[in-house]
């Protein structure tokens, strides 16, 4: 009897482990989650209870890019975009992030539906002129990749809104500490993924997820 229990337990555990393994595999090709806070609302429609989950969308903003053009929700109408936070004199992870974003920018060349938005967290030094110079050296156009500056507080609160860490830090190289994350935002202004912008493999996954959104395969 005891022996039988043991086998039962063992097979149950194996089954569960198997389920987890298969679950993990499926996750990578399943629909992308919608990230960020959400509200659950109960509505009664025709006498039937319906529960709706409302996800927060990226809130409106207004920044200026390397060509002095305003970037706002109007710029992003119907677009998928990848966004990050950096500064031009950053001596640590930013060049790597820019190398990886440049790879995406090249990969999606010719696709006007995919935009890139990089916020400078050093608006004091990163003037439009300086961003213009940086963009030119990187070989990118503001038609698809906006290097943005703006009101300092708006930029930092935008980082918080995107759930990306960024702060002034006198001890950090270059004077600022920030995350190397890339965020993927869909056409509905919902955040669909957070990736490590310094890691080529994770950026490959981001490219894969962009294609998914473009093909509408992974809409929930």
């Amino acid at each position: 009897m005891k022996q039988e229990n043991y086998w039962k337990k063992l097979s149950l555990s194996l089954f569960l482990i198997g389920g987890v393994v298969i679950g993990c595999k499926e996750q990578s090709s399943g629909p992308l989650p919608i990230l960020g806070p959400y509200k659950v609302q109960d509505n009664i429609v025709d006498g039937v209870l319906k529960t709706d989950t409302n996800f927060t969308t990226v809130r409106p903003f207004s920044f200026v890019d390397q060509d002095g053009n305003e970037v706002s929700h109007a710029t992003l109408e119907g677009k998928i975009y990848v966004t990050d936070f950096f500064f031009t004199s950053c001596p640590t992870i930013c060049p790597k992030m820019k190398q990886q974003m440049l790879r995406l920018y090249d990969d999606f060349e010719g696709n006007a539906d995919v935009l890139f938005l990089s916020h400078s967290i050093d608006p004091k030094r990163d003037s439009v002129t300086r961003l213009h110079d940086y963009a030119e050296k990187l070989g990118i156009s503001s038609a698809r990749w906006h290097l943005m500056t703006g009101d300092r507080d708006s930029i930092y609160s935008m980082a918080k809104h995107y759930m990306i860490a960024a702060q002034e830090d006198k001890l950090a190289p270059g004077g600022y500490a920030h995350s190397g994350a890339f965020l993927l935002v869909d056409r509905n202004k919902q955040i669909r993924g957070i990736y490590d912008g310094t890691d080529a493999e994770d950026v490959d996954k981001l490219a894969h997820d962009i294609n998914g959104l473009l093909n509408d395969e992974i809409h929930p």
Partner: protein
Amino acid sequence: MKSILSVSILSAALLMNGCDYKPRNQGKALFEKECQSCHMEKGQGLGKLFPPVANADYVVNNKTQLACLIRNGIEGQLTVNGQEYTGEMEGNLQLTEIEISNLVHYILVDLNNQKDAYQISEIKAQLELCKK
């Protein structure tokens, strides 16, 4: 007696530096730590922002200056493989002479196919000339 002494010195050196100690291993590790965030993982540089240090004519033509360049940094304009770069590279005052020597070795031999690198004594002499 002499051989025992040298063997023990050698083993001690190996212990101190880990089992895979080779100049180019330390050079590579230092490159990854200090240089690759701007000059990229293969030393290929990034656009017109950061010049390449691999297969770079500037490196080969200025090899006697590399040690000083790494230690003191450089600012202004320079031309690498026909492309002009303007900017600033901070110095690395924290690096020891041996570390700079290994880094120069890695850059010259592994990234620029140079057959010979410098002896530590030569690097010391080069650094002496740009001491601040």
